[in-house]
């Protein structure tokens, strides 16, 4: 069993200046980054590439990681940037059809049936949000990051996060109630 103080959190400024072991980091946070990119709307066809880009960026920036923030929020920050770039590129590329947020989940063997139905609905809502709100929704309501962590990952301050999470939850409830009977 691992100790609570993860070596991955040891930055240059901390007591232990041991280097961050990339493999351990990858093993511990791969699922988190995969889910985050998926939640943020990266289509499944691009998911592998996006995850690899994220971890290559993380590998390159690891020496610069100063341990001022949690490693999870740091990775989520990279995921936000990556998703935004992908989204922008997809909008520019006329020949490439815009990624459908639904096509990727249909028939996905990973998803259990109930979860899959829920995911189809939630994806619709997530796709209707702007970049900032999508990031907050994913970080706070799907990944369960704390308001402080969400604030760090998005660059907003904590009161704003509280305010927006409350508003997002309310919007989602209304939206879900309106779409409840959809197949």
């Amino acid at each position, binding site marked *: *069993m*691992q100790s*609570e103080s993860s070596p991955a959190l040891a930055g240059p400024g901390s007591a232990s200046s041991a*280097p*961050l072991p990339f*493999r351990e980091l*990858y093993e*511990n946070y*791969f*699922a988190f980054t*995969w889910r985050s990119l998926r939640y943020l709307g990266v289509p499944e066809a691009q998911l592998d590439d996006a995850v*690899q*880009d994220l971890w*290559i*960026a993380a*590998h*390159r*920036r*690891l*020496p*610069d990681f*100063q341990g*001022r*923030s*949690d490693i999870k*929020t740091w990775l989520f*920050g990279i995921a936000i*940037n990556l998703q*935004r770039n992908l989204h*922008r590129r997809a909008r520019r590329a006329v020949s490439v059809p815009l990624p459908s947020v639904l096509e990727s989940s249909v028939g996905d063997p*990973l*998803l*259990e049936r*109930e*979860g*899959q139905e*829920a*995911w189809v609905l939630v994806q619709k809502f997530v796709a209707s949000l702007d970049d900032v709100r999508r*990031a907050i929704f994913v970080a706070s309501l*799907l990944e*369960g990051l*704390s*308001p*402080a*962590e969400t604030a*760090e*990952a998005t660059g*907003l*301050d*904590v009161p704003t996060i*509280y*305010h927006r*999470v*409350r508003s997002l*939850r*309310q919007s*989602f*409830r209304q939206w879900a*109630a309106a779409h*409840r009977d959809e197949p």
Partner: protein
Amino acid sequence: MSEEEALWADELLARVRGAVEPHSEDAARNLSRIEARLGAGALEPSSEAEGGAISTHDASEPPVPTPSATRPSMADPGEPASRQGPALGALANAGARIDASSVSTRWGGLASPLRFGLVLAFGLVTGVVGYLIGRTETQHEARENTHPSRVTSGVDPASERIPSASASSVSASSASSSRAPAATAQPDDSAARTLADTSRESSSGSSSSSAIGKARVARRAKRPASSSGSGAAAAMPAAPAASTAESDAFDLREALELLRRAEAALRRADGLQARMWLDDLDRRAPAQLLLEERLVTRTLAECTLGDVAAARQTLRQLEQANPESIYRARLEGSCVAGLVPHR
């Protein structure tokens, strides 16, 4: 909106949380591709021992976002200016990678003494600003600590270490916004308690608008106690003060969720995934929270991975934690079944 509808929305989120997960082969497949893209030996321990500073990478690699150039401000134009904070922390870490070559090119035209002077001046200004901010915060904290309403009494140490049952009972999807005030509320602080109660009410979705109203009232009641100042700082909600303690809190609900994911992975015979979830749980949760359940699940995960030695070691930890554990029955039929004493 009825309570049932609100609960259904929360249920939707909970289902999604358990459903969107990668396969273990996704991790392995992507790791091998990452290695291939970084170049042979890039992830070897020798290079990691140098801080992972890999200078060579595949030229065909797609451009990785350089946030300083590509990332627009995350600030919402509709948000009041006083509520928009600077992009600190993770974004600074994730984004602020200064390209040394571009810096030297941009500043190359200046004479060395002038460059040195500029750097020195910048350092001095930064230091002074940092000192002033630190001093202001220290004074603010001192004021808060000396106020009678901040003195705690009769606080159960366990409830400080682990969020209280009432904090844990907050519904699944409301963790982020409502957990913090509840978890950090002091027993003798009626305003904070009211805020926690109203947060719980709003999380259940029964009367969210009235709950928000009550929370505002509670905040107003708390404000004079926490600060005698006025203006933007006083208008801030209690959340920032609570956030530091809150970020450390890890309630039972979250632990159960991670444990449930690990068990779901086990049912798929995905030991690696199960172990990842358990590692996540170990890292984030207090050591004693659901200890027996974690150890049993880890033992089974290690059995699934064929790591019998590790499974035995985990079983020993379980025996040490509680020799009479009711969960030992779950290990019957596992790779350590012969070691489980029958009582």
